[in-house]
């Protein structure tokens, strides 16, 4: 079933679009679920609620805003009826590859609309958001988000995949709680299969 809510990356934030044809209860449930599972989704950015082509009662809008307040550290909640295209970063641009030749340390963040290739590590506390793929010739220990514009074809590849959190498109995965004791490098690839993030050994 198609989700009654969708997300798109815009220049100043993320646009939440509500499906005009869906039942209001379904929209509410889907949004509640998302708030619960992805509390930090909007941390540090603006949340645009796209109400174009739909008609909601003022009470319903209130309810939606109240649910959306559950996201942590949102800058602003803004209603928009703009057709989103204008705001959206071209999310997959095959030609755009961003090469970064250094280790990203805690507190450093890279946000690119294309693919991101890093020669170095992503340390805990660092964050990489890419519209396309993320490829790391090093260890991933921070937060990575590939296919941030909604592309579920995107993948994450690293010589060692130990992220704090891994997101592809709208899916979020956490690594298992127990410590991995494997010290050696072990190239892995994460991608979406049957609606779930899966990780498998990356064979060249």
């Amino acid at each position, binding site marked *: 079933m198609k989700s009654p809510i969708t997300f798109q990356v815009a220049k100043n934030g993320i646009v939440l679009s509500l499906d005009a044809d869906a039942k209001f209860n379904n929209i509410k449930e889907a949004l509640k679920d998302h708030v619960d599972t992805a509390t930090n989704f909007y941390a540090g950015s603006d949340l645009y609620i796209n109400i174009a082509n739909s008609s909601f009662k003022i009470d319903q809008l209130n309810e939606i805003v109240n649910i959306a307040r559950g996201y942590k550290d949102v800058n602003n909640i803004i209603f928009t009826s703009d057709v989103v295209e204008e705001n959206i970063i071209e999310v997959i641009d095959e030609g755009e590859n961003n090469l970064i030749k250094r280790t990203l*340390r805690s*507190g450093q963040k890279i946000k690119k609309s294309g693919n991101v290739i890093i020669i170095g590590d992503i340390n805990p506390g660092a964050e990489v958001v890419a519209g396309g793929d993320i490829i790391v010739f090093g260890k991933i220990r921070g937060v990575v988000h590939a296919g941030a514009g909604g592309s579920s074809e995107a993948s994450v590849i690293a010589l060692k995949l130990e992220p704090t959190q891994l997101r592809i498109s709208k899916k979020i995965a956490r690594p298992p709680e127990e410590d991995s004791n494997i010290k050696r490098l072990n190239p892995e690839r994460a991608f979406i299969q049957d609606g779930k993030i899966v990780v498998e050994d990356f064979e060249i």
Partner: protein
Amino acid sequence: MAGKSLVITSGKGGVGKTTTVANIGTALAMMQHKVCLIDADIGLRNLDVIMGLENRIVYDIVDVVEENCRLEQALIRDKRHKNLFLLPAAQTRDKTAVQPKQMENLVKDLKKEVDYIIIDSPAGIEQGFKNAIAGADFALIVTTPEVSAVRDADRIIGLLEAEGIKDPEVIINRINPDMVKRGDMMTIEDIIEILAVKLKGIVPEDDIIIVSSNRGEPVVLKDNPKAGRAFKNIARRITGEEVNFISLEDSSFFSKIKKIFNFS
């Protein structure tokens, strides 16, 4: 010859920055270098207490930058070493009382007078930190074998690099060899692997530090075999000497460190 300036910083509080400054400074003075310690933790000054010089403060760093006194008037001579000085922080003001540019000029002036200037940075990454690093040529980062401290150290290294202070080095404080041996504590190897910077020293956990801090007598003054010796070694390394890392009782642990860092 112009002196060298060195900032001791950490991001996280309570990892032992001030203790490190007091001990390294005292150790350098014991090696006959002329040293000045600057307490950049305005509003929460501690270095004077740990040095046992609290009751000698008349002027402080804010008086100097506001030109209420001359620099020489604010410098407090250590009671044990005549070649060791302290420029205390103000206790009744806050971090905004000094600007990075003023700090830079202050350190520049001091460099003409002393061999080493050691700046004690406050915790955090805000203005106090920016002031503390403004005049520094080099940085030493103090961390403890805890995930949170290492995380903050990593953040600080990134910020230092952005400010143009290249190749900071790390001091791992309060390591407990027994806990490392049992696998209950982050190892030096784990920490260096994440931070990817050069190791400047390892200081074992030592109860004597608390006693010496309370008495205002840096531990290097006594012939202390654990923390005291570790701080003396760090001071020797700062002067360019090659000093092996001390054994933390367990010989296999020591050989492991030697293996990682290729010390013979």
